[in-house]
C-alpha cells in the first residue's frame, strides 16, 4: 500500500518549470530510485517533499496526511528523513552529538526536567545515547568507539556520508530520502553503499527513495526506477525497462540527428 503519494506536483522558478505535473507513488518497504540528467529537478522534488520549498500546485501525501504547507521539522515528525547531496553535517559537533541532536523530534524533556535533571530526563538521555550508538553501529566499526567524540569535520568523506545517513535514521523515520548517497565514492565504497541501502530496508525496515547518477547503485538495488527530464516524468518501471527506454537514453546521451 502507498506510503507516499505525489499527485500532479508543480514548481516553477520564474519562467522555468522545474517540476511539471509530477505524479508517482512509493509503497511501503519499497526501494525506489529517481534518476535523470543534472537539472532534471530530482533534488527539487526532495526539497518539495521535505518542506524546504513550497509547491505551486499539486499534492503530496504521506501516510494519508498532506505535506503541503508543513514546516520541515513537522514533516520529519511525520516520519520522513533525508540526507543532502552536498552533505550538511553539524561539522563542529562530535559524531555522536550529530546523531543525538536528530533525536529531538521524538523526545519530550521539558525545560524544567532539563534544569532539575529529573530521573525521567536521565532515562531519556540514556535512551537517546543508546539510540545514537545503535544507529552508528549500523555501519560496522567505522563510526564506533573513540570516533564518537571526534568532531564531525575530522571524518573522511565516505564516513561523513555514512554519518549523515545515521543522523537521518535517528529521527525515527518510516521513509528515507537519500540524495546521491554514492556521490564521490570509489567502486568498492559504491558497492558497500548499494548493499547498505538494501540492509536499510531489509534489516531496519525503512522505505527508501533515493536520487542517484551511478547506475551500478540504481540497478543493484532498486525495486523500481523513475526517470525525470526537465521536470517531467519520462519513464517508470524496472531498471531494465527504464534504461532501455528511448526517451531516457535520449535525455542522457542526446539524439542521433
Amino acid at each position, binding site marked *: 500500500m502507498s506510503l507516499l503519494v505525489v499527485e500532479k506536483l508543480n514548481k516553477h522558478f520564474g519562467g522555468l518549470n522545474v517540476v511539471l505535473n509530477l505524479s508517482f507513488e512509493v509503497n511501503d518497504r519499497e526501494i525506489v530510485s529517481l534518476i535523470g540528467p543534472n537539472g532534471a529537478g530530482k533534488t527539487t522534488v526532495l526539497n518539495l517533499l521535505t518542506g524546504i520549498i513550497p509547491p505551486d500546485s499539486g499534492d503530496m501525501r504521506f501516510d494519508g496526511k498532506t505535506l503541503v504547507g508543513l514546516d*520541515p521539522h513537522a514533516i520529519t515528525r511525520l516520519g520522513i528523513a533525508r540526507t543532502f547531496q552536498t552533505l550538511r553535517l553539524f561539522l563542529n559537533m562530535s559524531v555522536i552529538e550529530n546523531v543525538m541532536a536528530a533525536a529531538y523530534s521524538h523526545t519530550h524533556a521539558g525545560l524544567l526536567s532539563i534544569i532539575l535533571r529529573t530521573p525521567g530526563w536521565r532515562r531519556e538521555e540514556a535512551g537517546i545515547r543508546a539510540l545514537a550508538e545503535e544507529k552508528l553501529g549500523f555501519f560496522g566499526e567505522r563510526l564506533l568507539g573513540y570516533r564518537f567524540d571526534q568532531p564531525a569535520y575530522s571524518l573522511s568523506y565516505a564516513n561523513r556520508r555514512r554519518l549523515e545517513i545515521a543522523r537521518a535514521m535517528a529521527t525515527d523515520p518510516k521513509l528515507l530520502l537519500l540524495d546521491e548517497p554514492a556521490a564521490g565514492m570509489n567502486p568498492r565504497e559504491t558497492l558497500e553503499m548499494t548493499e547498505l541501502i538494501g540492509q536499510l530496508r531489509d534489516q531496519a525496515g525503512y522505505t527508501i527513495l533515493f536520487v542517484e547518477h551511478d547506475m551500478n547503485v540504481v540497478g543493484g538495488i532498486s525495486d523500481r526506477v523513475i526517470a525525470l527530464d526537465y521536470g517531467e516524468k519520462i519513464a517508470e518501471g524496472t531498471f531494465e525497462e527504464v534504461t532501455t527506454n528511448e526517451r531516457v537514453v535520449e535525455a542522457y546521451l542526446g539524439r542521433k540527428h
Partner: protein
Amino acid sequence: MSTERTSELRPAEPSHEAGLRIGTDEWVAQAEARRRRRSGALGKLADRWAALPPIARIGLFALLLLAAPVVTAARPVLDLLGISNNGFIVRIGATFLASSILAVGLNVVVGYAGLLDLGYVAFYGLAGYAYAYLSSDFINGGVHLPSILSVPLIIAFTALMGWFLGSLSIRLYGDYLAIVTLGFGQLFVQLASTLTRVKVFWLDKTVDLTRGPNGINNLDNVVLFGYSFRSTLQYYYLFFVMLAVVLVVVHHMNQSRIGRAWRAMREDDLAADVMGMPTRRLKLIAFAIGAAIAALAGTVLAAWQGSVTPGRYDLLALIDLYAMVVLGGIGSLAGVVLGAFVFTILPELLRSVELASYLFYLGGLLGLIWWLKPSRRLVVLLAGAFAGGLVFKLLIHWFLPGLDSGAVPSGGSFLNQAVQSWLVIPEKFKAVGNVAIGAAVLMLLVTILLKPPLRWLTLGLTLYLFAFAWETRLATEPSVTRVLITGVTLIVLMIFRPEGLLGEPRVSVG
C-alpha cells in the same frame, strides 16, 4: 626542565600506550593527546591540572572567589598589595560577578543559539527600570513590592519581552538580525532618556515616565526572607550565589536536547530544521532565556547601585559584554566567566600603581614563558638580562657617575623600588622615559624580526627598556596606562587566539 626532544627515526614498533600499534586508526586519533602532553616541571603541573575532574577545578575557583573578600582584608595581604583597605577590591569583585551573569546570558543567545542579538542590553535595562518602578517612590507616592515578588515577576516579564522581540525578528539571519536588534537596543535607551513628558489624553496632563537622563534614584535594597542586602560585601556574595545558580542551569540546558538543538541550529539552521528540530521555537526560547538571565542580573544590579540611568544601558555597555563573551570564547561557559574577569578586573586593578606594576611584570614573565617555554634558555636569558643591567649600572657609576641620580619616579611597592634600584635613572627621567617607550617597542620589533643568537641580545635590551619605560613613565599615570594596557592585551589575545581564551577553533567548511 628541558623540552628539547631529540627526534630519532626508529622503525615502527608496538607503542606501549594502551597496547596500540603505531599507525592504526586509534593510535592516530590519540596523536593529538600525545603531542599535548608537556614535559618539565611546569608541564607536569599543567598535566596534573588538566587531569583534575572539572568539578574539582570549579570547586577551586569557587573557593578562591568565596575567600577573596576575607583574604584581601587581612593585614599582610593589604600591605603586600600596598593598599589601605579592600573595599575597592570587593566592589570590582561584585562588578565582575554581576557582569559574568550578564555575559552568560548573552552567551546563551549568541554562543549557543548563534543569534547575533545586539539589543541584549535593552533587556538588562528594562529589568532595571521595572525594578525602579516597583521598588521606589517613583510611582504615585511609592510602590515597594517586596523583592521576593518583584524579581521573579520582572524576570518573567522580561522573558516575555525577549520572546516578543525574537518573534519580530524571527525571519532574519545574521547581519539583518543584528541591525534590527541593535535598533531595539538603541530605542530603549532613547525612550528611557526622553519619555519625560508623555501626554495622557484622558487625564489631560503630562507624565514623566523615566526621569530622563538623570534616571530614578533611591531604589530599595533586595530583601530576601527578612535579610536586607545593604553593603557591597553582601551583594558580592549574593551575586556569587546567583552566578553559581545560573551557571548550573545553563550548563544543564547545554547538555540536553535543547543544547544540542541550539548548537545544531548554529551550525546549519536548515539542516537542523530538516532533522526535526523546530528552529523557530528554539530561537525564541534562546531569546527568552537570555533575557531572563539579563533580568535577574539587572534587577539586583539596580538594587545594588541604588539607581537606574539610561546611560548605563547604552552601546558601550553592550560592547563591553560582547568583548567579554568574544574574548573568553563564544560558547564556552568557563571562557565567558574568564572573559568577564579579564575585562572587568584588569582595567580596575590597573588603576593602582602597585597592582599595575605587579600585573605588568607578571604579564611580561608569562609572555616570556609562553614564548620560550620553561627552559634553560629562559633562565639564562633572564639571568643574563639581570646581570647585564647590573654591569651597565656599574659602568655608568665608573664613567658617568652623575647620570644615575637615584631619583625615585613612582612610590609603588617594594617591587617597583627593587626594579628602580636595578635601573639607571637619570635626573630628567620623564623625558628619557618618553623616548624609552618608543625605543622599547622598536627593540621588540627588532627582536621578533631577528634570528637567534642575535635575538637574545636584543631581547635582553628590550626587557631593560620596557622596565625603564614602565618605572619612569607608564606606572606614574595609571589612568592612561590602564586603558593602554587593557587595549593592547585584548588585541594581542585576539591575534593569537581568535577563538577566545577558552573557545574551540571552529571549522566552517572542513
